């Protein structure tokens, strides 16, 4: 039975990957940042001469880059995930699927597929950057990677994975209540609002003039707040880059977040199963918005 479950996870993941690789959305996600980068490159606006880089510069770079990276990756893949769940719901296939494969295997399969797609995405970028640097004899990325501590690098990879995991789990849970594909945005908005807020706060933390002293005073409080995923994943890299927290605290934070995520995942699977079966139930988030709108209309009529 365990083997069957593994096969089911693999089947769901393969189905998702196959579907995304033949979709316009996935390739758009990969292409549009490249287009923007190309515009910057053509207009000569990239002046990242890190030949004289020092530790502080590099920290500031990671402090700014990571929150944006997590935000962009989450936005892209949360949309893909929400869309995939919405297709299951609106194709009215979810009831039949649930009889074949449990919600847990479906969720794990979809999340695994999303990580594979992201890995492919990053591999394509790495390949393109490598080719670009070979052609232009540049060394920006090489310099950044060479000067970044391996321990820090491992941490940011883990951290990005944890942040994305949390975003995907929440988006899936909300998307399982979608009854119409036009509601996909409603499944993405709450998660992205949270991630976006975290990103903004991370930017503020990356301005040491304002927050350096404050974070030292609130250290214990901050560590408690940061344990809650994905806030920790968004803020910790910045704090770590600015040496406001230690590696022990950072790695401990990831472990605590993973424990919390494991618990949340259990709840999410239950909600996901319930959401997939409740075709007659409206999306709770959309209901709130609808209620607001109706309220406004009533006000206007008066």
């Amino acid at each position, binding site marked *: *039975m365990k*083997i*069957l*479950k593994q*096969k*089911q996870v*693999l*089947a*769901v993941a*393969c*189905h998702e990957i*196959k579907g995304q690789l033949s979709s316009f959305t996935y390739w758009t996600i990969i292409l549009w940042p490249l287009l923007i980068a190309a515009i910057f490159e053509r207009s000569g606006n990239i002046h990242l001469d890190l030949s004289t880089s020092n530790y502080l510069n590099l920290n500031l770079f990671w402090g700014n880059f990571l929150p944006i990276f997590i935000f962009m990756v989450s936005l892209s893949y949360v949309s893909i995930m929400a869309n995939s769940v919405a*297709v299951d719901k609106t*194709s*009215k*296939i*979810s*009831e*039949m*699927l*649930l*009889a*074949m*494969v*449990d919600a847990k295997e479906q969720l794990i399969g979809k999340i695994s597929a999303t990580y594979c797609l992201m890995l492919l995405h990053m591999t394509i970028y790495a390949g393109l950057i490598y080719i670009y640097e070979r052609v232009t004899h540049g060394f920006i990325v090489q310099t950044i990677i060479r000067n970044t501590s391996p321990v820090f690098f491992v941490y940011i990879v883990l951290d990005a994975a944890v942040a994305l995991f949390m975003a995907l789990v929440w988006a899936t849970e909300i998307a399982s209540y979608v009854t119409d594909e036009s509601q996909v945005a409603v499944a993405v908005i709450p998660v992205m609002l949270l991630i976006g807020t975290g990103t903004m706060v991370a930017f503020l933390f990356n301005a040491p003039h304002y927050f350096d002293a404050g974070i030292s005073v609130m250290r214990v409080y901050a560590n408690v707040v940061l344990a809650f995923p994905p806030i920790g994943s968004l803020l910790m890299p910045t704090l770590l880059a600015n040496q406001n927290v230690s590696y022990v605290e950072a790695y401990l934070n990831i472990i605590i977040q993973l424990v919390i995520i494991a618990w949340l995942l259990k709840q999410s699977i239950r909600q996901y*199963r319930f959401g997939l*079966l409740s*075709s007659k139930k409206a999306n709770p988030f959309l209901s709130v918005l609808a209620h607001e709108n109706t309220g406004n209309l009533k006000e206007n009529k008066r």
Partner: protein
Amino acid sequence: MIELQHVSKRFGNFNAVSDLSFSLHSGQILSLIGQNGAGKSTTFHMILDFIKPDSGKILWSGKPLTPDAITAKVGYMPEERGLYPKETIKSQLLYFAALHGMKKAEAIILLDDWMKRLNVVGKSTDKIESLSKGNAQKVQLIACLMFKPQLLILDEPFSGLDPVNSELLIKAILTAKQQGTMVIFSTHNMDNVQKLSDYIVMLKHGQTVLKGTPTEIYRQFGRLRLDIEGYQNVERLKRIQGVKKVTLMANGVHLELNNEQCGKIIFTEVTKHGYVPVFNQHYPDLEAIFKYEVHKKAYDRL
């Protein structure tokens, strides 16, 4: 063998299913009939572990039916028809086969075989969205049958099918029965219930109002219908005690009786005047029984 023992389910104040019990052996077909909202789909959902019963047990060969066993042994076609519209028949069915742990080569052979057997119009490379409703329904049925389930649950399988496709579906169900599959299906088409069922359960507002083999159910009502050909003296028949209603037909009369015994008196009466080619005293058909059970308070006994 699957066995439901005193299964009940309430949704708030609504009694969805109340004290439902039945058992089904290998190679038997059970029809679950009742009006919309009678509790048929809820029963299916409880067997499939989509929802838990409030009380009672669902057993498989004497042991509680586990989610793993459901995935491996039960094929389910829900009332809400759904497939991925953008996918081809082949990719769709191969995905479902993979979810059941089947090998691709084996699934391709079965897929072609079932497509021929159910007379699915078109090629396996056709997209689902290009199929007619009936053909899409057949594809769904193939998805349920191709992994050779031990229990097949079909929720309203005949809805939307023309008589030719209904016949094909009946053949497919009977083939599954011959191979030892247990089949539980719900329908509003009493002709199909009569053709297929080894066992009938009728629900009304969640309560079991009829239960048993077709013969047992007919016997509960008695031979209260009489068709006579070659005799049309309505007035004389109306005067016989026990005759409830006489309807003049093109080549004879149709009678509704209050008791079986008056059949003998009627036989003596009509044969007194010469040869009667047809004298058929029979049970009411299932449709009449169904209508009677639904409107029990409004109508007299059959």
